[in-house]
């Protein structure tokens, strides 16, 4: 640690570091299981999320088998197909991506990147994980209840979500809603931690404008999630009451199996408003941490400072704010006032501006950079390409007149898998390859990593790129078997078969990744403290993996932003955030 050069910070008392009340684990159980250390919680979150994500991956295989080779797999009946769709979507969006970005990356990186010892409320943080685990267990248990999981689609739209024609009407939907409510409660506990830690526990010198963009992304996404998840909570509670107590919040008067139901007068549109008031911010809850991670990966692996840091921060904040006023663009075909449609189309397209700024800045960061095509960098580049791709089709779907014919076709599926499936997963993989050495002290295997990257990237494109074309043909989504239709040519079925084979291959490549994660834990190359030569604080910890309390006796002091790469005149091609300026070196303040 360095001494504080008092002259550069005249008038300010020495840093108040040291005396921080740290929680000290006393046994194996409290160290590794009921741990209050954010790093352990992050790993617990990540493993749980990846485990349930594997379930969702298998579900996607089953769906693709059915779509690619209809009639061949007799064990997949239409009800099951709907259940697979529902569970795949719900798991991937909420239980995998949200939990992994905020619970996993957020927990691990926030305290390290802002120079804190831990989250500010460690006990609440631990509770957050256990409630999340309970939510996952409740969700997974729906596979084993009578009637199986709900098949209402991941949007759970009433009235069909709780009517008897929908699979999982008995128990599946109840468990699903309960699980969502638990997830939201658990997330709120974690989210309070992430926000307050960024606000209050930053080390000295770490102003907001010196935070790495990863922290900005996770921070803004957490604030959004805290404000948006209550909408899902309200919708879930009310739908649960409709199902259990027979209230009519959402349920209109309708006839079911020839009988008038007990419901009457409710508004399904009300549910849609509530759901999408959460659902649209959710897209950016997943995208903003990815934006942040990608910004850091690009800067480190191109050995160049991030282009337009201020603009990047402003764009993150602007996207966060705007994403709350676009929700009804998911409801163009639900019937709405044309002025509403116009309003929401306009706000939707306005989001393209800050998003485009970010893409320009990534590209300009790469421009004339010293690009190292490491595995994290490959994933980062793939993210940019995929995100631009998915973003452009977003412009199509954001316009009412274009959306109406494309709605409920495979085009929508292709769009949101590009923008919200492939792109964030690329960021997740990039982030894991990048920070794995910090978490474990060992590098992931490079050759396996490259194999994983190329198969995943090219394979994902083989799956989802042709899907746009199927959508334009008019092939509907959510159909178990499209059968003989006049507008779908035979070649489309061949294309479907090709996509299914590609999906299987991509899925198997993920097993290589899992193998790599485990194998490298024991056999990987020793990484040292800072294998990528990165400037941000998490790479400057005294130990790797960081010890309990993250920093030694004293918290680090921050003298600069996180992107000092290839600085002219510097001895190395990066300057760590906690390295004092050259002036104070001359005074001998540096040990």
């Amino acid at each position, binding site marked *: 640690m360095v001494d504080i050069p008092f002259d550069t*910070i005249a008038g300010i008392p020495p840093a108040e570091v040291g005396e921080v009340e740290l929680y000290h684990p006393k046994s194996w159980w409290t160290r590794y299981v009921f741990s209050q250390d954010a790093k352990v919680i992050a790993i617990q979150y990540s493993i749980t999320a990846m485990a349930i994500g594997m379930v969702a991956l298998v579900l996607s295989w089953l769906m693709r088998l059915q779509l690619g080779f209809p009639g061949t797999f007799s064990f997949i009946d239409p009800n099951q197909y709907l259940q697979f769709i529902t569970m795949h979507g719900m798991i991937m969006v909420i239980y995998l991506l949200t939990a992994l970005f905020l619970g996993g990356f957020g927990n691990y990186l926030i305290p390290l990147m802002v120079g804190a010892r831990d989250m500010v409320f460690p006990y609440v943080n631990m509770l957050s994980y256990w409630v999340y685990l309970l939510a996952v267990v409740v969700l997974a248990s729906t596979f084993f209840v009578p009637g199986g999981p709900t098949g209402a689609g991941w949007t759970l739209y009433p009235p069909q979500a709780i009517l008897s024609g929908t699979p999982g009407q008995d128990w599946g939907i109840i468990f699903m809603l309960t699980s969502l409510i638990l997830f939201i409660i658990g997330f709120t506990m974690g989210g309070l931690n992430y926000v307050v830690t960024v606000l*209050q526990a930053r080390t000295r010198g770490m102003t907001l404008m010196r935070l790495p963009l990863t922290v900005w992304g996770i921070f803004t996404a957490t604030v959004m999630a805290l404000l948006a998840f209550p909408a899902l909570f309200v919708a879930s509670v009310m739908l649960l009451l409709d199902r259990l107590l027979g209230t009519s919040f959402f349920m209109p008067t309708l006839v079911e199996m020839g009988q008038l139901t007990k419901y009457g007068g409710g508004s399904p549109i009300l549910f849609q408003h509530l759901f999408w008031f959460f659902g649209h911010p959710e897209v950016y809850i997943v995208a903003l941490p990815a934006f942040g991670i990608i910004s850091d990966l690009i800067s480190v692996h191109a050995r160049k400072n991030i282009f337009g840091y201020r603009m990047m921060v402003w764009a993150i904040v602007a996207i966060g704010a705007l994403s709350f006023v676009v929700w009804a663009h998911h409801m163009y075909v639900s019937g709405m006032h044309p002025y509403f449609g116009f309003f929401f189309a306009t706000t939707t397209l306005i989001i393209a501006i800050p998003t485009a700024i970010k893409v320009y800045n990534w590209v300009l960061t790469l421009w004339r950079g010293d690009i190292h095509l490491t595995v994290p960098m490959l994933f980062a580049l793939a993210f940019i390409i995929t995100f631009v791709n998915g973003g452009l089709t977003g412009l199509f779907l954001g316009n009412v007149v274009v959306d109406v014919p494309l709605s409920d076709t495979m085009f929508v599926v292709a769009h949101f898998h590009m923008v919200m499936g492939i792109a964030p997963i690329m960021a997740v993989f990039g982030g894991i390859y990048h920070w794995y050495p910090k978490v474990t002290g060992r590098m992931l295997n490079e050759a396996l990593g490259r194999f994983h990257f190329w198969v995943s990237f090219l394979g994902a494109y083989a799956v989802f790129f042709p899907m746009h074309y199927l959508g334009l043909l008019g092939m509907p989504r959510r159909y178990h078997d499209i059968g003989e239709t006049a507008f779908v040519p035979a070649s489309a079925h061949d294309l479907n078969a090709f996509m299914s084979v590609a999906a299987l291959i991509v899925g198997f490549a993920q097993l290589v990744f899992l193998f790599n994660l485990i194998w490298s834990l024991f056999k990987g190359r020793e990484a040292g403290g800072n294998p990528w030569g990165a400037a941000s604080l998490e790479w400057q910890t005294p130990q790797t993996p960081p010890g309990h309390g993250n920093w030694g006796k004293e918290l680090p002091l921050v003298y600069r932003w996180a992107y000092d790469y290839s600085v002219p005149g510097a001895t190395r091609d990066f300057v760590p955030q906690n390295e004092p*300026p050259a002036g104070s070196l001359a005074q001998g303040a540096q040990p």
Partner: protein
Amino acid sequence: MSAIILFMAGIAAIAGWWLSQQRLAAKPWLEQGVITDWREENPSSLPPAKIGLGVFLAVVGSLFALFISAYSMRMSMVDWRALPVPRLLWFNTGVLVTSSIALQWAHVAARRNDMDGVIVGLCAGGASAVTFLVGQLLAWQQLSVAGYFVASNPANSFFYLITAMHGLHLMGGLVALGRTTAKAWRGADMTRMRLSVELCAIYWHFLLLVWLVLLGLLTGWTDDFVDICRQLLT
């Protein structure tokens, strides 16, 4: 959705004001050395627990704003039959006000280092909060005796749902209050007590505010206002 939009606009205003204090126009690539930020320039900066509570109140506020949004959208449907509000609610409101006053008393006593006053305030606040909850249950019972069941009309469903949500939040508060009281009983350090008591008082005042808004909504006092909001969006 106008209630939640208004609420979000309020949050956005607070966030915007706060961001405007954070030198977001700084050029970090030109600045070196330890620079101070807002936290250090404001020595009276808030403890983390208080900020955490503030963020939590924003979450709870957005939850209730969404319930109010749903309420105002659903009440414009034709099958809505407003239910007579039990007069017991006025008594309950009075009790909740008492509870808030008692906790404020405890907060003032904590600042004066008066441990006995703190304990009296906390116990009185807790007891009246429990009385409020019992009163709410009695109000439920009166309604169901009078034939207003939870599923018989959306107005009833909302009444039960919203009062239950508010009651659950108060019960959560009672857990914190109980722990604080236990600490006070054991004679904890006054500086730490002061913060705990203050957090309880803030939470209680917030829940009182939420209750008053909900009461206005449930009794139909705010119908005109709800109408105006609805017209804003149509």
